């Protein structure tokens, strides 16, 4: 299977001008992008001779609409829900996963299968982390502690977006994960969530890019932060920062590869996505940054971090010792409620200014 694909890539490389084209791969920057470069982009470039350039963006479908065509984006790393929005708006190329990957590989994907415009590449978690220096005695262990500024004083680094924090607000009210999205679908649920956010309003330090929360913990602007598990791992295990991750209430999401509708190198882009979706590539990524593979067969291949020698399986979001309370991000709900959540979030932000 794999050999056949490599052969096809070689043929493509020899046969046409498509392979000679440059490829622009868009991702989120920082440690994540570096890991992707080492695990997927560099091997692909080496194998096919394609020049690959990496560009950084903020992860929104809006950015794709604004910058995609003018900057020549080809392959884009997206959140599942953003890919759904972009796909519905016609910003993405339809992939035909069956032809791209084959039926056998399609059955290997978990927890999410490839869709019309997107192929899952890794499983990440939005988690809470804290500055170990800030809490010398009792340490935070639960999502409830994020909203408890009396027991755990200090700044809270939160993404300036309704993503994730609304779920945590309800989780801290004792709502079990299975009911979070149902409750957030009601006006009452949103009101409750924002009421919970009110309790930490004066302590919030907003962040916009995903490498900020770890920095905020390091430089003392915040004592607790919302962020992606891979970034915290990078800062703590590789960078030696005094940061510890609380896995309780982690929000698990799936990151996908998609191809821009405006791509000028569709063949090379498809070849890249196919290769980046191989179990080998997924395992290489998970060794460099603890984002779990999106295919079952990749788990067995995950070894140690090449820099530190840390065995990486224990740091993946789905490691069993991370506890039972986890929420799987509902991508369809996210995609269809984006406008509503943004509107309510803005209204909540404005309340403070009045």
């Amino acid at each position, binding site marked *: 299977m794999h050999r056949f694909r490599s052969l096809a890539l070689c043929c493509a490389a020899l046969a046409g001008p498509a392979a000679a084209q440059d490829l622009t791969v868009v991702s989120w920057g920082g440690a994540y992008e570096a890991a992707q470069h080492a695990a997927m982009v560099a091997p692909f470039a080496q194998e096919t001779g394609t020049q690959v350039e990496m560009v950084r963006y903020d992860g929104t479908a809006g950015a794709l609409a604004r910058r995609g065509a003018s900057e020549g984006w080809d392959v884009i790393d997206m959140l599942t829900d953003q890919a759904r929005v972009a796909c519905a708006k016609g910003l993405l190329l339809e992939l035909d996963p069956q032809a791209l990957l084959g039926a056998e590989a399609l059955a290997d994907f978990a927890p999410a299968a490839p869709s019309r415009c997107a192929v899952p590449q890794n499983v990440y978690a939005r988690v809470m982390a804290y500055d170990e220096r800030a809490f010398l005695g009792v340490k935070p262990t639960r999502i409830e502690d994020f909203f408890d500024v009396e027991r755990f004083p200090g700044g809270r680094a939160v993404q300036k977006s309704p993503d994730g924090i609304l779920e945590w607000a309800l989780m801290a*009210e*004792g*709502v*079990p994960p*299975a*009911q979070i*999205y*149902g*409750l957030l*679908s*009601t*006006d*009452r*649920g949103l009101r*409750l969530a924002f*009421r919970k956010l009110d309790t930490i309003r004066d302590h919030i330090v907003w962040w916009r890019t995903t490498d900020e929360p770890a920095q905020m913990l390091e430089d003392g602007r915040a004592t607790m932060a919302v962020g992606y598990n891979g970034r915290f791992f990078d800062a703590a295990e590789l960078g030696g920062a005094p940061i510890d991750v609380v896995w309780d209430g982690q929000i698990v999401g799936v990151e996908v590869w998609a191809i821009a509708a405006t791509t000028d190198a569709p063949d090379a882009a498809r070849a890249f996505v196919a290769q980046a979706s191989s179990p080998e590539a997924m395992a290489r990524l998970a060794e460099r940054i603890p984002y779990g593979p999106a295919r079952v067969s990749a788990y067995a291949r995950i070894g140690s971090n090449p820099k530190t020698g840390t065995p990486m399986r224990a740091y993946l979001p789905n490691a069993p010792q991370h506890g039972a309370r986890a929420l799987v991000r509902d991508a*369809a*709900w996210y995609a*269809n*409620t984006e*406008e*509503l959540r943004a509107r309510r979030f803005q209204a909540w932000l404005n309340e403070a200014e009045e």
Partner: protein
Amino acid sequence: MSKAAHSAARHPASRMLILTGTALVIGAAASLAAIALVELVSALNTWLLVAPKARVQWEQIHWLVVTATLLVPTVGGLLVGLAHRYLSPAGRPLGPPDVIRAVQFHTALPDGRSGLISTATAALSLGAGASVGQYGPMVYLGALIGGAARRLKWGVPNLAEIAISCGVAAAISTAFNAPIAGLVFAHEVVLRHYATQAFAPVTVASATGYVIANVVFDRPALFLVDFAGVAHGYEFALFAVLGLVVALAAVGFMRLLLWAGPACAQVIRRAELRPAAAGLVLGVTALALPDVLGIGTEVLRFATIEGAFGQGELVILIAAKIALTALCIGAGFSGGVFSPALLIGSLTGALFWMLVSGTGGVATSGVAVYAIGGMMAFASAVIGAPLTCILIVFELTRNYDVTIAAMVTVVFSNLVSHRLFGRSLFDVQLAGRGFDFSLGRDRARLAALRVLDLASEEAVTAQADEAPGAVAARLERRDWRQAFVTDGAGRLVGVFTPAAGEGAATVGVAARPASLVFHEDTDVASAMAQLRDFVGDAVPVTERSSGRYLGAVAEAAVVSAWVDQSERLREEENASL
């Protein structure tokens, strides 16, 4: 009698195999059917924009949500009404009372077609967001599957009743993910005894339901709560008071529900249009108060969160939910009362907590335990099953402390509602149809036997103008001591005994008024009470309205019917296999 003869022919081991096998098959089938019903309702809720999670995703197309809110319950109601009118021989939704009746009187359930239509209309009613419950239809569906065993002539006594109970237990076990509650519900509400012969197979069926729900489908517990324990001892007194308060609300709810049916019938003549009208009222209300739509899983959870509702909001929501549930069920939507009872009860519990803790300033251990206690206490008053409700709390929440607290609330609620209203809504509904269980199942069974059915064909009758001698000769031949004398119109004139007839011209003149007369509606239970002071062979039965003579019942026939029934009950309740 024939059943006993059969059972004697069967070896106990083969009876055990039959019962266990039946329990496994029916348990598995009922469990799968229950899952299918839950999934169907949930899918309909999503497609029809009833579930909040579906509604919010279309929030930007406002007119669509408004139209769906108004049209879905209305059109759903119309379809339900038409289906009952034209497709169902029973012409109405079937539910737990029908199951109880079939099991208690060893009769068949209403016909299978009516049962299937009732299940389909329940799925439609629930799917369209009607304010009705899903557990009643679930119980009926389980019973329908179990009821199929009635056709099996395998020589096992009470097989049909046990099979129905197996179906019910498995359905509840699966739907609530609560095998112990399923088992107890089947015994407490449906069978009303705990004979080993029934207990073992029902347990097997309940466990089968649990295995299918948990091992095969991996369904989570329905209502997990975080609760560390009751903080203050005096709160147990509050739980008891909550039970009393909830019981009053439940009694009001049940009275309104019983009143709503006839009231709807008066306002709208055509039965098939009533659910549509109720659906429209529901839809209009839901525009302002979306919480009233559907089963209300979200509302149930909100009730356990402090500050999710304002005090006024709670009062309005409780009133609206009570009124709309009574309306939906009274108008003929197909569905149960249990889920709405859970919802109203939990809101009542939350309101009680708010008054005690907020207004009263009493320190408590949080709203959740009051909401859950209220929830189960209300439901227990409605279905008349305190043990089941206590166990459901345990299995739904998997929390021991909450269960102990809720137990107190449940029991006090039952105490009051039983005294003020009756054992359960089901029993009161059945009593309305002439099957009164308030004095026990033996009494109910005797009350269902008409003395007229025991009338002796041997009884001697005479025309009023016959000569005493001829009648006396007839009595002599048949070895009877009394003849029942009727006039030209067939009305009972009196009782003639040869000793009293000497010297009289006709038996009509000699007849003395009967010291005791039964009527066509006299049952064995009341007959037994009246026979206490009776002296004589037989009691005449006359038509209550006209006094027409219908037959005569020998005292011995009434007594042996009573003995037979008691015997049968004793056998059923003490059967080991």
